[in-house]
């Protein structure tokens, strides 16, 4: 782990009492290595390291009796700060139904997360309603229908429609008719550089006025995470992030990069394929995982 690596450096350098600039450089190298291995964005790491350096050569570490602990503490604090406070509280629209729209790259986990989120809302005492707005992927509608059926959640789908806007409008009407108070809209995977598909997403957003747009991101995403998030923010706009597939050994540095650059909160993490595997996001736990 990073803390034990840092301890190692300090014991080798016999850094008791004063902490020299050379020791700080060595520590920073280790931290940089850990963050890059964890897929944190190159530029975000650069900025982060210079922030740490500024604090590390400051008085608090220089005067500290346990410089290693001090540096680790600073790194953890800066990381947790960057990850954002605990912002997991799901908010709802003042007038129902509250509409959530899930977007993201192909295969990131949107359809599964839509169902999981509906389940989460159901357990909260809400009456969720799913809308299958992916009209492109073979059997995408069947996939969400199957999940809705498994959960006992109502769903609107139209296998004949070629217009997403119409599907979501009809879906919301149906949800209101049934007395549902939350609608979760699953959309097709799309590239942030696919102008046609980003335009469609904007149209669906305009047609539904969602309370929140959630960007679904795979935890194993590498350096490209920032391109994707910035693009989705600029071309569509989103309010929060769902980070998926954290049940593996991906360090999840993309979470830090996206948060640092877009300032948007991570709302949930997905810890598996089961429908009850959506969890609230804890920034300090994520910071620890990224550090390794």
């Amino acid at each position, binding site marked *: 782990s990073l803390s034990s690596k840092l301890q190692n450096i300090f014991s080798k350098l016999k850094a008791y009492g004063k902490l020299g600039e050379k020791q700080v450089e060595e520590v920073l190298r280790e931290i940089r290595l850990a963050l890059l291995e964890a897929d944190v964005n190159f530029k975000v790491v650069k900025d982060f390291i210079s922030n740490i350096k500024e604090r590390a050569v400051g008085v608090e570490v220089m005067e500290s009796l346990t410089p290693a602990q001090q540096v680790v503490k600073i790194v953890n604090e800066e990381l947790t700060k960057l990850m954002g406070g605990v912002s997991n509280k799901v908010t709802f629209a003042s007038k129902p139904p509250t509409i959530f729209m899930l977007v993201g790259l*192909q*295969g990131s986990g949107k359809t599964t997360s839509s169902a999981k989120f509906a389940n989460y809302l159901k357990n909260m005492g809400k009456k969720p309603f799913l809308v299958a707005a992916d009209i492109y992927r*073979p059997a995408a509608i069947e*996939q969400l229908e199957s999940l809705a059926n498994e959960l006992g959640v109502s769903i609107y789908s139209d296998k004949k429609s070629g217009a997403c806007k119409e599907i979501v409008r009809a879906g919301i009407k149906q949800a209101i008719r049934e007395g549902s108070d939350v609608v979760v809209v699953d959309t097709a995977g799309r*590239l942030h550089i696919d102008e046609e598909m980003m335009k469609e997403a904007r149209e669906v957003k305009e047609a539904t006025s969602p309370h929140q747009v959630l960007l679904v991101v*795979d935890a194993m995403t*590498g*350096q*490209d995470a920032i391109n994707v998030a910035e693009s989705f923010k600029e071309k569509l706009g989103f309010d929060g992030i769902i980070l998926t597939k954290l049940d*593996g050994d991906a360090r999840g540095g993309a979470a830090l990069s996206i948060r640092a650059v877009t300032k948007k909160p991570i709302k949930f993490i997905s810890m598996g394929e089961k429908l009850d595997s959506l969890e609230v996001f804890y920034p300090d736990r994520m910071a620890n995982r990224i550090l390794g």
Partner: protein
Amino acid sequence: LFGASSIDESFWDEMEEILIRADVGIHATTQIIDKLKMRAKERNAKEAEEIKELFKSEMVEILTVENGNFINEDSLNVLLLVGVNGVGKTTTIAKMAYKFIGSDKKVLLAAADTFRAAAIEQLQEWGKRLGADVVRHQRGGDPAAVVFDAISAARARNMDILLVDTAGRLHTNVNLMEELKKIKRVVLKELHVDSVKIGLVVDATSGQNAISQARLFNDALGLDFVVLTKLDGTAKGGIVVAIEDEFKIPIWLIGTGEGLDDLRHFNPQKFVEALFG
């Protein structure tokens, strides 16, 4: 970017940034840079352009792995695609089928993802569009049993190629990795090892975790090839450089979109040019 023609520390920093931002990873990048620094010294290279070309040729070398034929002309070939969730296995199976059918091969598909919602339906829809049959069982059934039946059907119908789609799974899930080993055992009971090829599908957007994926899938099954998908995005897919460097598994195909036609042979030269582009 290469305006400065002198080779100073900022030049090497620039090269490091290109490679890391392409997901080559800090470790493989450091190794490549150290090697290039030596080479530059040996050749007394002074021009940035010259060193840049050396970088490219070094990476092409890493990415060029000796690979025999993946398809035998005169017997049934079984190709099994594996990988973590959502990387593009099912879609790649469809694209490969399209490619083989285009070369007049008789192709059969096996829906061995018996777990995920509508996984079987997804492959069946592709089969319909391709005019290829899909061997399937009930959802929740034993994937190895599906594969066994598919092999019998492939033999009975004198098929050239059987493509097996498997469920996405994390390489760290021991039980699911055991399930794959069982599928492999079932296949090898029926066919000679030369007729069976196992391919790992890797998403170009993935970061360093893909190395761990390659390692564990290779340890469990032995991998014959890699397919790198979603190269039509902005991710460079440089993770394959690190994978190649460590495991030497040939990269056979790349995915460049969601249509049947969006599959190409991996070309190390073109890939490296795009990475630096």
